[in-house]
């Protein structure tokens, strides 16, 4: 059962209304302006180092300083079976000692998480022992798509450990020796 409204509210209210028209004008101009200039997709950029084998005749490559110490020469090869990992220290083998190091998942996707995990292990073991623990060379079969290569770069760039981004192998070089 509703209450009968109180008689107090029947007092005439002084009408002190704000004049909202100028504010509305402002809004009507500002909102379309900001909507037009807003960017909903963000562009990013990946810096690339030249593949040493391909660009040896390039301008800056010939003046590359020779680094001392042991080289790790970490290489990830993307094939249609999965990822193959190799370095100067060892060749990571797949199960049963053959096949790709990290095979594709059952649904056909590449196993980027596993790659990141494995690279993190390698990074932990290799740091201090080798001079090039920032670099990685990515190889791919001719028909591997650009997106797969980019995802592989993402997987090898950094890793999230305890909610902290740690760099893995941010200096990526592409190579073409598979072709």
């Amino acid at each position, binding site marked *: 059962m509703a209450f009968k409204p109180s008689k107090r509210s029947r007092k005439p209210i002084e009408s002190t209304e704000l004049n909202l028209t100028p504010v509305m004008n402002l809004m009507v101009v500002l909102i379309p302006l900001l909507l037009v200039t807003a960017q909903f997709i963000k562009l990013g950029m990946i*810096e690339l180092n030249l*593949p040493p084998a391909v660009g040896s005749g390039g301008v800056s490559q010939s003046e590359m300083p020779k680094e001392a110490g042991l080289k790790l020469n970490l290489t990830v090869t993307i094939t249609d079976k999965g990822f193959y990992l190799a370095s100067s220290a060892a060749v990571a083998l797949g199960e049963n000692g053959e096949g790709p190091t990290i095979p594709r998942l059952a649904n056909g996707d590449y196993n980027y998480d596993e790659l990141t995990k494995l690279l993190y292990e390698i990074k932990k073991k290799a740091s201090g022992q080798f001079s090039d623990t920032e670099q990685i060379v990515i190889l791919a079969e001719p028909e591997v798509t650009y997106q797969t290569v980019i995802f592989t770069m993402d997987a090898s760039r950094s890793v999230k450990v305890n909610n902290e981004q740690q760099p893995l192998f941010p200096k990526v070089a592409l190579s073409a020796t598979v072709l």
Partner: protein
Amino acid sequence: MAFIPSRIKRHDTGEGEVKVMLTSMMDMFTIMLVFLLSSYSTEGQMIQPSNDLTLPKSSVEKMPEVALDLSISKEWVLLNGKPVVKVTNIANYNGMIIPQLQQELLRYSTEAEAMQVKYGKPFSGLVTIQGDYALAYKVLVKVMATCGKSKYPNMRLFVYQKA
């Protein structure tokens, strides 16, 4: 049981003046304005991604730079918006260096080097590559090899940032 207003008051609708309630609209506009202002960046989008290709997604967080624009769309390789060579030709080409592309790139680099001598604008050898996400690796590598051999060794790949 609902309260029944008196008969007199039921027809008491003021002086016939209709007022629009602007308060809720103002609320909405204020929220939109705050959201848009917060997402507003003064840097602006200097790079327009090409329409006939879809860039791949990546988790990279680096902001794009402006440089010589090389797009590899589904059909053509474009240099600064000008079609240079067909993608299918590159895919079927046996060598690593694509002659048509190299010729164009060298033309741009000579111009840029002349600018460096005349006006002191340094030539960085920077080229930005926009590639379609479904592009085959063999095409990408050939294009990049050509860039490297044509005085453009510093390459940047454009991607969409993952949200």
